[in-house]
């Protein structure tokens, strides 16, 4: 990964596709095209961020990662609130890394919204258009239209402290969109809401993001928010991208323990030779895929079957002797964390758990059918 600052290429052009259909030679994936092309490097004494982020107009990209992974730093760097140490930031063919935040075509919805408490909802939304040179009347008319679109017309004259969490979130979104940004940034857009309003706000937000024609980047630590709202996920850990892909791809083929935990899968890494994967530490897993070399193997906790005694004549070739390390309720199921030959999570019904007399320290046999596992190259 390059860490040096990129110099301006001479071919910078706001019209990406010339009339004859030919394009100048490129050294980067579509650096002159519309959309976002960013290599964000922010170095601090105790922390380093170094990620590449690309998105086409109309695309919603979620930055997903644990707390302290650098998501918010990445967002602040995109908005211009945190300067880049190196790298570059290009939006619709324009280099932005030296542009101050007020001159960037970027809108931000902050985690706690940061609505100006002394202004009404209408004047909060009108703030951006005013700064862009609209007269007071024009700005207010535009703001009123945005609030109307958000279904908040009757709350226009209300101060932010009198708005509910969901309403405040919509005002914040309207305020960011009213500047007509080419890049919309959302920092944990649903984190400040309680579980009930979240559901409603999430589906509304999804609709508004679908209508938004430019690039949207969303930061979240909640996999559900990311998967519902985004077209593409970029998972970052410790300031580095660990996996990118569609929500479905990431849910099916996690590449780190963090993602596997998020999507609720057991994940192992090992060396495959045909249908057998030798784990680095532990037994082998039999899979249906025929692979060689470094692979990941994933299977769902619900694919695991537990026995108190060693099953006789079991068809499953993946049979391991384990011990219950812990139990917790997981929806209407019981999730058992097992240690022993292999560490894994298994889901079973409350009845099954009672019949097996599961308790921490209890010895069990665990099996997984090869057809229930999924192996893919590392």
């Amino acid at each position: 990964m390059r860490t040096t600052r990129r110099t301006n290429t001479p071919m910078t052009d706001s019209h990406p596709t010339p009339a004859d259909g030919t394009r100048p030679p490129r050294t980067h994936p579509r650096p002159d095209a519309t959309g976002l092309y960013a290599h964000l490097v922010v170095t601090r004494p105790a922390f380093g961020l170094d990620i590449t982020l690309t998105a086409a107009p109309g695309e919603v990209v979620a930055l997903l990662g644990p707390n302290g992974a650098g998501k918010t730093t990445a967002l602040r760097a995109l908005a211009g609130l945190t300067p880049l140490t190196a790298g570059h930031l290009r939006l619709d063919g324009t280099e932005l890394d030296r542009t101050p935040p007020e001159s960037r075509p970027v809108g931000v919805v902050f985690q706690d919204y940061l609505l100006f408490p002394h202004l009404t909802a209408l004047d909060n939304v009108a703030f951006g258009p005013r700064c862009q040179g609209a007269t007071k009347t024009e700005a207010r008319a535009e703001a009123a239209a945005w609030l109307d679109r958000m279904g908040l017309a009757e709350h226009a004259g209300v101060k932010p402290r009198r708005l509910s969490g969901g309403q405040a979130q919509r005002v914040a979104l309207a305020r960011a969109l009213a500047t007509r940004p080419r890049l919309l940034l959302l920092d944990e857009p649903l984190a400040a809401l309680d579980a009930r309003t979240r559901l409603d706000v999430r589906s509304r937000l999804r609709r508004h993001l679908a209508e938004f024609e430019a690039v949207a980047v969303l930061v979240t630590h909640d996999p559900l928010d990311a998967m519902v709202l985004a077209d593409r996920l970029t998972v970052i850990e410790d300031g580095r991208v660990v996996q990118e892909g569609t929500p479905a791809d990431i849910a099916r083929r996690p590449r780190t323990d963090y993602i596997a935990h998020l999507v609720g899968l057991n994940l192992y890494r090992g060396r495959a030779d045909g249908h057998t994967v030798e784990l680095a530490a532990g037994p082998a897993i039999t899979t249906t895929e025929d692979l060689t070399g470094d692979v990941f193997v994933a299977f769902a906790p619900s694919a695991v079957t537990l026995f108190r005694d060693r099953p006789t004549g079991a068809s499953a070739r993946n049979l391991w002797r384990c011990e219950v390390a812990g139990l917790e309720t997981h929806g209407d199921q019981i999730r058992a964390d097992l240690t022993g030959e292999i560490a894994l999570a298994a889901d079973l019904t409350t009845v099954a758990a009672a019949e097996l007399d599961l308790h921490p320290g209890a010895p069990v046999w665990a099996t997984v059918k090869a057809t229930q596992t999924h192996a893919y190259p590392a």
Partner: protein
Amino acid sequence: MTKTDESGAVTGTLTGGPRRRRFRPAVPLPLLLPGAVALAFLLLPLVALLVRAPWSSLPSLLTDTQVWQALRLSLICATAATGVSLVLGVPLAWLLARTKFPGRGFVRALVTLPLVLPPVVGGVALLLALGRNGVAGQWLDAWFGITLPFTTAGVVVAESFVAMPFLVISVEGTLRAADPRYEEAATTLGASRFTAFRRVTLPLIAPGIAAGAVLAWARALGEFGATITFAGNFPGRTQTMPLAVYLALQNDPDAAIALSLVLLTVSIAVLAALRDRWMTAS
């Protein structure tokens, strides 16, 4: 919670009430006595002022033109000094709170220096700086024909010098307590840093600015040392209330008391204006 717990809790509160009253901690004498003396010490002079006030001759004393002149001058100069402090002090407070530059801590210390500097020394320093032959004053005189010492403008300068630090410190504290991310939110909406300050920060810290302005105004109104040193004591031109009180005390003590009562009334009014802020702070 079980039923026994509940009943236990109920009996607990029933027995707890009288017991709490019986064991109300006594105030220790070593604290009570000095505290009471301190209170008496602070209140006695004010009481004395009220007791000895020439109530019957008060109307005639207060309608004297000299008194009105001094009071008018005091109010005008204190208000002007507050205005100067606001126009110059609020930006300085913002610089101290929101920007980083080498030696910022040292600059902050310098700003607070007039708070602890004896006002007379301040007056002398102002003479050396802005006097007719002063470091900067000689240029003011030569280029613009402006002379500050011993003029009404000089009174404003002296009062501003003493009062501005109160405003700067007060506003800077409010700015530090205010969330700087509102300014960031404003810049992402296309506001320049100055627009963000004017349209977002300023309204948010308005209560702090008002409190600082009242403090500065009160300090300017009572200013004596720097004023008499830098601006002199010319009735109608530089003789403010405190100067008039001091002068009257030599020839006409009753007039001095009357003037003092006026200033006391103003002080109480200031206190009342600030009460809400101090009540919420405690």
